[in-house]
């Protein structure tokens, strides 16, 4: 793990390097290139996406956008479930809105490719979306298994896309680990710059480009609100980072769900109300 001092030295020694071809899956180079931020940006940006969708509720529908990252060559996208009606599902009264008409916009694309909602994990605040159109070549992606565990004070970075007006130009933001908490589970707390600027659902990296985790929001559940005082969330600044290992585990579960034939699953569900009992026997394989 690099220290503050060495980062500063590297930054001093930086020069405008030749553009690095987008190959996010490439292993981190053994020798540090100068200009860590610029390199991260070039390396990671091709895997960053904007997600356009409609949130349908009983009241009507609403156009919405979220950020995400492609995490395998087949076009699996990780994003924040909270943007997809997850917050309403947890805390709202009535029915949570259903996301539909999902489109993944890669780079400065304006049309997008069709995608389907694969799975959500309301507790972790994550959602997985699968690009649903055949692609001519594998997608650039972030390899979540190339991960690192940062310590308090370590530099962390997020690569995101700017808004529509700026044609979704990629940008990089830096920050550092302010704390590591274990409640409600092991979480990395980022400094304000990243918490505020980095949108939920995006991966964070260390200097070497290794994934430290995914920015998300994990809030108390209803039954945990009891006895909650005003200052219960003191020190919380709007985003937390779920460590890469937990993301990998959750993603494996999402993939497993995807493997079960959706049509079959649908049929099973359709006959499910006469089999609420059966339901108990449905265990994850």
């Amino acid at each position, binding site marked *: 793990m690099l220290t503050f001092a060495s980062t500063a030295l590297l930054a001093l020694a930086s020069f405008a390097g030749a553009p690095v071809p987008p190959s996010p899956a490439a292993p981190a180079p053994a020798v540090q290139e100068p200009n860590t931020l610029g390199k991260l940006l070039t390396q990671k940006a091709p895997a960053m996406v904007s997600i356009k969708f409609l949130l349908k509720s009983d009241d009507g529908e609403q156009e919405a956008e979220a950020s995400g990252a492609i995490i395998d060559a087949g076009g699996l996208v990780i994003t924040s479930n909270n943007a997809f009606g997850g917050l309403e599902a947890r805390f709202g009264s009535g029915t949570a809105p259903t996301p539909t008409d999902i489109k993944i916009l890669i780079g400065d694309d304006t049309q997008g490719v069709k995608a389907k909602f694969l799975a959500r994990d309301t507790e972790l605040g994550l959602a997985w979306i699968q690009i649903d159109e055949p692609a001519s070549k594998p997608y650039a992606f972030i390899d979540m298994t190339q991960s690192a565990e940062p310590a308090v004070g370590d530099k962390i970075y997020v690569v995101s896309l700017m808004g529509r007006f700026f044609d979704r130009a990629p940008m990089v933001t830096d920050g550092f680990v302010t704390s590591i908490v274990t409640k409600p589970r092991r979480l990395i707390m980022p400094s304000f710059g990243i918490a505020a600027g980095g949108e939920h659902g995006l991966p964070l990296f260390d200097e070497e480009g290794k994934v430290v985790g995914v920015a998300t929001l994990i809030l108390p559940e209803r039954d945990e609100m009891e006895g909650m005082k005003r200052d219960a969330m003191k020190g919380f600044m709007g985003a937390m980072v779920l460590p890469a290992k937990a993301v990998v585990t959750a993603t494996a579960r999402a993939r497993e769900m995807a493997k079960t034939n959706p049509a079959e699953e649908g049929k099973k569900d*359709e006959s499910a109300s006469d089999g609420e009992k059966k339901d108990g026997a449905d265990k994850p394989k």
Partner: protein
Amino acid sequence: MGVWRVRRAFGVSIAAGTVLGIVASGGLMAVPGCASSRQPAGNAEADAAHLREEMRTVVTTARDRVFPALVNIAVITVNYYGGKESKGGQTGSGTIISPDGYILTNQHVTDMGTKFRITLADRREVAATVVGEDPLTDLAILKIDPDQLGGTLPYATFGDSDKLVVGDYVMAMGSPLALSRSVTLGIVSNTERVFTTGMNADEIDEMEFDAGRTGLFTSWIQHDALINHGNSGGPLVNLRGEIVGVNALGGNNIGFAIPASLAKDVARHLIDDGEVIRSAIGIAVKPIKRSEFKEGVFINSVVKGSPADKAGLKAGDVVTAMDGKPVTVKFAEEVPAFIRKIAALPVGSKLELAYTRAGQTGTATLTTEKLLKERGDQVALRMWGLSMSQITQKMAKDLQLDDSKGAIVTGIRRGGPADQAEPSINSADVIRTIDNKPVDNLKAIVDAYKAIMAQDPIPEFVLVGFDRAGKNQVTLIKPRPEKRDDPPREIPKHWIGAATQPVLRDLARELGTPEALGFRVTRVYPGTMAAGSKLKVGDIVTAINDEPIVPRQMQDAGMFQRRVRSLSGEDNATLRVFRDGKSMEVQVPLERTRIGPDEALKEQNKDFDISVREVTFFDRDDERWTDDIEGVLVDNVERAGWAGLAGMQEGDLVQRINQYEIRSIPEFRKAMTAIAKQQPARVTFAVLRRNRTYFMFAEPDWKPMATTEKAQEGAKEEAAPDMQPQPSAPDAGKEGGNGKPPPASKQ
């Protein structure tokens, strides 16, 4: 003042004086049979009793003349907001005014109505149709069929409202609730009340749309016979038992009625022609009260292209004579009478107006034209996410459009296809072309919509040309069925079918096991795998798979299940528990998290306007429904839909619909499709609400939504009697089974 005199003359208590006062202060003169009650002093009590008796006779006699003809009107409405149609309901009162079943009521009672149900005084119910509506006077005529009611109908007659004077007794009658009829008594407070705009303004605004213009022709009768919601359209009755007004506004002990002289006239036109044809010359009038003029009618503005404009009249002119007769509007109260005079002329009449302009006099001869319809018919194109209105000539003028071709957008569904089009379509845009073909009116647009949406598959884009503030634009709408996708699925995780509470330090000590800090089992859910294990209520769990689980405060209440969910791989969990003061290990099989209400399968039914979902484990636990209780749970009910009207509520468990047992969403879907094909007059829903059963009797109207059809005909009146059968909504035919309703029948 009258009360004072009465009290003195009869020497009765104040309480009695209130009643007597009313009689003595004027009613005696008007009421036959009451005029001889002045008795020598000393007989006050007998007088009072006599008077009371006579007044009672007068009131009840008058009441009995109108009461049998008094009806309650229940209306199902369809509104077009935000690009979708939504059903609603309203009720009002009305009076049968002829033996063949014409009913007089307010236009705001029938407004947007598609179905009318009349409850007669004898509690018989019958359907009614609209004969005509006149928004300008807020009056409408409905019709019921006497043959359905045994041939003869009670009816009430009109009195002469012009003879009403301030102080006359009047009775307000109505049926604020379906079966109750009420009478209230009061006096006329004012016979020529008008409503002006603003605080001390003296203008009667005739330039506004819709409601703003209601009452333009009306010198209202203000009275203090109590009227309430639901009295609208009910009669104001004199002590002879004649209709002298139609109650339309009220509250705060004040009521306003449309005078019978106007109502009678409007009713006749509506019955004969289906509309009231009026003349207009295109001027707005301002009373001269504050001007330098002593007489004449001040022209506040002139509508461009109107008869007044063509004849050379200008704003600021003062009309001094109409066809040789002097005219003056000094006060706002005089405006309605002046406008009525012009309106009453046959359309195309020659009218000679003498006027002064800057001291010069002049004469203008003009030909009146038809007063134009205020509001066009409306329709919602659901799969395009917009609602539209026919453009009336009046609207074209007011909105400064070149012509009245096309249709104007009245609402956009947020996030809907029209909203998402690039550029997006907005309210007040005028749609001119669809797929490059001109669409001249609402009917053409609805036809184009139906033709496009009938294609299979639905085309990806529809090219729409529209005008916005004089600019002609084109955009692409992507039609989309209104279907809602199944909710996203939650990643399955481990779960133990038990509820727990944290055991904190103090509680542990008092429970006798200070070392047992953990989670106390409060419930083992029946039917779960945990129920088959040795876990018991009262057990205090202190570790899962040898990892301690210790709550520090109440907000750790969710920690037990959080920990279980984060387990990976295993089939069983080993719980370390304290039971009866002893520590032991309990093996509990792990099962998957249960589907919550948000993940449950849903189904929407448009025929009855309900959506239902499958029952989840948590619903059962909340309601204490055991596994053998089956059905589908009502998620959403539209209040004025057929199920809503039958009394269906959210949270009801639908278990049977007519002969069909409902145990699942597919069974519900199947039953509703079958019922839509059968189109029975009555559909019985058997539901479970908490632990009680309820039966709901829905009486669906399988006929098409009238308003959609009316819109296509271009005129409400023409379309009402024999509509072409169509699916209730343009896009309902596809999945619902109601694509082929039977020919429209008489209601």
